[in-house]
């Protein structure tokens, strides 16, 4: 049990021997051509199946299943709520949690409030106040409410927060319920984030009939409900198939570095040997049509908690059995630490600046991983 609690920083650490860890590490850290246990390329995602609107009672929902059997369901519910009058000042104070853009927007005439988006994550085997679900939900919520469009995209100028404003006295409150259906085999963040993204894409809000500052009053026809994230209109959507000029919910990608290599969508074993684990939130920049970075969070690499291997030179039982030359420590180019090849040493978590820069670049660049993921998700028929 204590093991599981500890695993809150990342997923459970697989029970691998130091030798296995070391083998895994060395295959993954092969310069330029890492060999992943499942044979994927470094930027390749695991195949997944996705569908939307699986829960008819919700405003929007999605299910994503990875081929390894992990599955998540996300349901989004919206509720009309009265805005407490003092919200503008509150929004400014609260926005200080590192959301500079948000704060600037908050000082505008109509301010949304980050707390209008509520996210709860349920993971089997965890209580809802355990560190992992709380941490994960906060991480995803923050990029969600922090994502801000540009002024031109009038509807979503202030991002999701502004979209939730109905008028000065009323707003929508969004409940995002994330449910992981399987045991978390890998760190569940990418799965949950992708599912949430998809669910939000399919989310609709009832069409408003009232105007201005009137009490909200809605059309009872669900067919005319409007998307939370507006779609490109049919005509323009044909010509501009990427739909890049529209604000999209952010996705959070999990990236690890092993040696000099950068690996996307790591599985559990890969995370176990990672030098650094990063959660990168990206979204489309509706102005430039490119991707932009919303946040980077480092996640405690679980490799820190593994048992170290013992070099033969220090192993009493092996004393004199091998030639001392085999055990010469070399400098690991990625971490700058001295290591004996083939002998596992727990990672300390340090990572070079250049590696991080490379990670961000790979994620954001045109035709890069980020674009591939977003396009893939947009390809899921949302109906």
């Amino acid at each position, binding site marked *: 049990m204590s093991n599981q609690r500890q695993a809150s920083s990342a997923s459970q650490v697989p029970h691998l021997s130091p030798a296995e860890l070391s083998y895994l590490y060395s295959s993954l850290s092969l310069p330029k051509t890492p060999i992943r246990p499942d044979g994927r390329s470094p930027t390749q995602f695991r195949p997944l199946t996705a569908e939307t609107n699986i829960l008819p009672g919700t405003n929007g929902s999605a299910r994503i299943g990875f081929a390894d059997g992990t599955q998540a369901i996300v349901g989004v519910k919206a509720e009309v709520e009265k805005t407490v009058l003092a919200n503008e000042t509150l929004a400014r104070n609260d926005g200080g949690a590192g959301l500079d853009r948000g704060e600037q927007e908050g000082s505008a005439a109509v301010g949304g409030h980050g707390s209008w988006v509520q996210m709860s994550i349920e993971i089997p085997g965890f209580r809802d106040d355990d560190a992992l679900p709380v941490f994960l939900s906060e991480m995803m919520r923050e990029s969600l409410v922090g994502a801000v469009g540009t002024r031109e995209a009038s509807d979503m100028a202030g991002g999701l927060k502004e979209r939730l404003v109905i008028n000065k006295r009323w707003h929508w409150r969004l409940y995002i319920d994330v449910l992981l259906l399987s045991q978390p085999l890998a760190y569940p963040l990418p799965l949950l984030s992708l599912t949430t993204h998809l669910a939000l894409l399919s989310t609709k809000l009832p069409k408003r009939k009232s105007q201005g500052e009137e*009490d*909200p009053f809605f059309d009872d026809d669900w067919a005319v409900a409007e998307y939370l994230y507006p779609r490109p209109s049919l005509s323009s959507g044909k010509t501009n198939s990427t739909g890049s000029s529209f604000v999209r919910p952010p996705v959070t990608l999990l990236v690890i570095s092993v040696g000099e290599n950068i690996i996307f969508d790591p599985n559990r074993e890969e995370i176990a040997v990672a030098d650094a684990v990063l959660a990168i939130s990206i979204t489309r920049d509706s102005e430039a049509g490119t991707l932009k970075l919303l946040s980077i969070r480092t996640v405690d690499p679980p490799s820190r908690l593994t048992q170290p291997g013992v070099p033969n030179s220090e192993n009493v039982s092996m004393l004199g059995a091998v030639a001392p030359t085999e055990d010469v420590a070399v400098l690991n180019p990625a971490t700058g630490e001295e290591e004996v090849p083939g002998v596992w040493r727990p990672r300390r978590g340090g990572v070079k600046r250049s590696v991080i820069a490379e990670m961000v670049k790979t994620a954001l660049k045109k035709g890069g991983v980020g674009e591939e993921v977003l396009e893939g998700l947009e390809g899921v*028929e949302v109906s």
Partner: protein
Amino acid sequence: MKSLRRDISSNPQAANVTSKVFVRSTKSGKVQKIVRELYLRQDIPCSSKLCSLCPSIAPADANGNIAPFVLSDRPAGTKAFPRGHYLFPDTNALLNGMDLFEHTGAFYDVVILQTVLEELRNQSLPLYNRLLSLIKTDEKRFYLFFNEFRLETHVRRGPEESINDRNDRAVRTVASWYEEHLRVSAKKSKKEKFVPAMVVITDDKDSIRKAKAENVTALSLADYVAGLEDSEKLLDMISEAREARDTKDSARGELFYPEYYSMSKLMTGLRAGTLHQGVFNVSPYNYLEGSIKVPAFDKPLLILGRDNSNRAISSDVVVIELLPKDQWKSPSAKIVDEEAVTKNDNPDTDESEAVVTDRERKALQEEAKQAHGKNSEGNPQPTAKVVGVIKRNWRQYVGHVDSNSTASHAGRRQQTVFVLPMEKRVPKIRVRTRQASELIGQRIVVTIDSWDRDSRYPTGHYIRSLGELETKGAETEALLLEYDVQYKPFPKSVLDCLPAEGHDWKVPASKEDKGWNGRRDLRDLLICSIDPPGCQDIDDALHARPLPNGNFEVGVHIADVSHFVKPNNAMDLEASVRGTTVYLVDKRIDMLPHLLGTDLCSLKPYVERYAFSVIWEVTPNAEIVSSNFTKSVIRSREAFSYEQAQLRIDDPSQTDELTESMRNLLRFSKILRQKRYDAGALNLASPEVRIEAGDEAGDPLTDVKTKAMLETNSLVEEFMLLANITVATKVYESFSQTALLRRHATPPPQNFEDLTNQLAKKRGMELDVSSSGALANSLDRCVDPENPFFNTLVRILATRCMTSAEYFCAGAHAESEFRHYGLASPIYTHFTSPIRRYADLLVHRQLASAIGYEGEDGHAVIEGVSTRGKLEDICRNINYRHRNAQFAGRASIEYYVGQALKARGEKMAAGGTDTGIDEEGYVMRVFENGVVVFVPRFGIEGVVRLEDFVLPGESGIYSVAERRELAVHRTTDFDSEEYTVRVSEKNHPEKERSVQVELFQRVKVNISSVKEEGRGAGKRRVRVLITG
């Protein structure tokens, strides 16, 4: 990356399951997406007698019977459809032509789709209810087809398809399914020749076009009706609303009225308290003045003028906005009749007319002047304007065609006429008709369809004719319709609930019989009943006998109606809808079928009857020692009329036990009465006369009698009150939430303000309204030795200041609010007249349950007495019916008096001239241009207009027309402080040639019945002339 979405078609079960998704906004402001799953089936029958397939698949009930099929196998045909046809109306066809569908001459074999019914419910609840009752009747052969649940006819809404289009498609789909289905089944049974045509009735041009493409026969309502016999009359019955809209769109006329606020704006305003909601009420004296009582203000808010009332019609639920303070005014002191002001309006043209015509503006301005002038009584009252309508309470109105508005020789051409409703508070209605010349002089029923911004008057359509004006049948029916009294004979389903033995029903002889379960045998008690002469429905009987301990046993025995009327059967439902028996002068509209009311339940003398008894033990001083309730069997010894009972009591030679017991009852009743007055009960007066229909030959006016009060009247009354109070206490003990009680709210003191001022000013009398006791005492002091009727007059006026008593359900109010103000009782209910009031019947059931009476079959009958929601609905209905029954009764008397006067007038005219009758009258209200006079002899109130004052030096009486001429030459000097009005001729201001009238004054009046033109036509206005 690969994405996968499961396809519905891959699921074999999916075809049977579908869902319905919509958004629901709750009262608390929540907005929810609602998903309902629909399971489609294939065993919903087509219900055509022609079909050979459906009888085998239709679902059967527990006894293995299937519902009888509705649609005829030989439906009626028309020229276009010689083989007969089934009709499939869409929602709009029903909205526009419900009166047609109810017509008995056509429209048989109609299939109503569930989709259409639901849509209709959303659009108009009254029409929905009418359609439901159509479906229920057998003779019209309307079949409700649950198309949404049948696999073949369920229509999935396509992408980008509007709801209307989808519903129209549903109608066409059903029609084509019927066609196919019946064709197949007819082929099997070799009856192909009889398959009728399926005709979709829709007014949607697009739908007709699509129907053509889909090979479905579709016709517009007008086109279909045009192919029927008697089409002219039928075409008149199509609602004008749509047609009017079509024509107006092309030539958008001038907009007379401001637009209503949007629904959301109204809701915002109501929640924020800037707008108010209430029921729009029009003053009976001034059609331009309305008032609305809203909780936020003590006094009702005034709505002055047409533009402020903005198309609201009396009894609509409207939303109003307060006007700025500088536009506040005093209520009008003028009598304004619509027909006098707008007499010359032309129904066809609206152009060149403003909403507020100059004439109307003048009528209003004079008021304003009056309000600002002097230091008029009271401050200006807040005024408001209507900004939205929550609910139209339009109903069918009885009226007649204004003959001035018809073209003299229009022939059969369609023309627009004005219909003047009998109800003065409803504006005239513009009706298009092809039969104008036939309708003149008829009592007709019309309905309002719409009131658009560009029309000065509401638009409606003709429904049916009741007969000629002033004929007894037409006028009685008109009266019943106006007061929404259900006067149709009881349907068979109700009569089926009566005991099979009919008049031969008897209390079972053997006490072993289940009818005796839980009943006490009170047959040996000396019970008698005292009622008005000729009473057939005897609700109550009494007895009193000395007990060995010196006390007395007093019993009130009430007809045990709940024994015969079981909860929730057809008879019970009918009774709960009727609510009360309505008494007209020459007619009684029963709540329960004749057999029960006048025989089986009626506590007739000399026969055994079931009763529900309340029995007290009282001391010789009428202190109640104990009370007891029981179901019983009694045998009344005698049925007295009040007079007979009085004579027998007063006759000292009668010393038998029965008379003694009546004397005891009388003695107790006097003590009880005194106690009640000591507690502060009010002795109120209402201007009631009763009419004893005498022989035809005599002077009908002699039948009009003011009600005489005998001691025996109050004997019965006292014990009924006592029984009601005792029962109320018991029922409330057992059902703290659902007891059906009756309360009379304490009127707010400001209601009495006017009357208090008037009394203080004119007579120097004071009215203490702090409590009912104080009021009773001060009313007793309002005596004018010169004028014996004055006290009664004040009581009548005081009664009008009060709120009316109402039934309610105990949970709806706090216990302190249960008080009955007039009776000064902390709790009250109605228990003693179950034959004629539904409330009493319910209370009987509650009491039976409270005392643990288990009914004849052993299980308690508490159904229908335990759910509060249902009870509140019933209370609302019976309060409404009760009020209407009173109004109808009064109107009936008024009509009778008018007719009696007319008959007399005609008789007089035969021998000379009609000089009317000279009577005494009392001034009740003073207006700037007239007064209201009350004539106690006939219990009528008459408005006396300027021309009806007979000035000194004026000779004799003129005809109506001649008198009307006088009005323009007259002028008044109105003093709102002193409540006086002086009428004089314009050029002769001398005192000698004028008449001054003041409030409460006794005046000599001359009463005659005159044929009135305009609004009151046919009603025969009773003309009151003040002669001095």
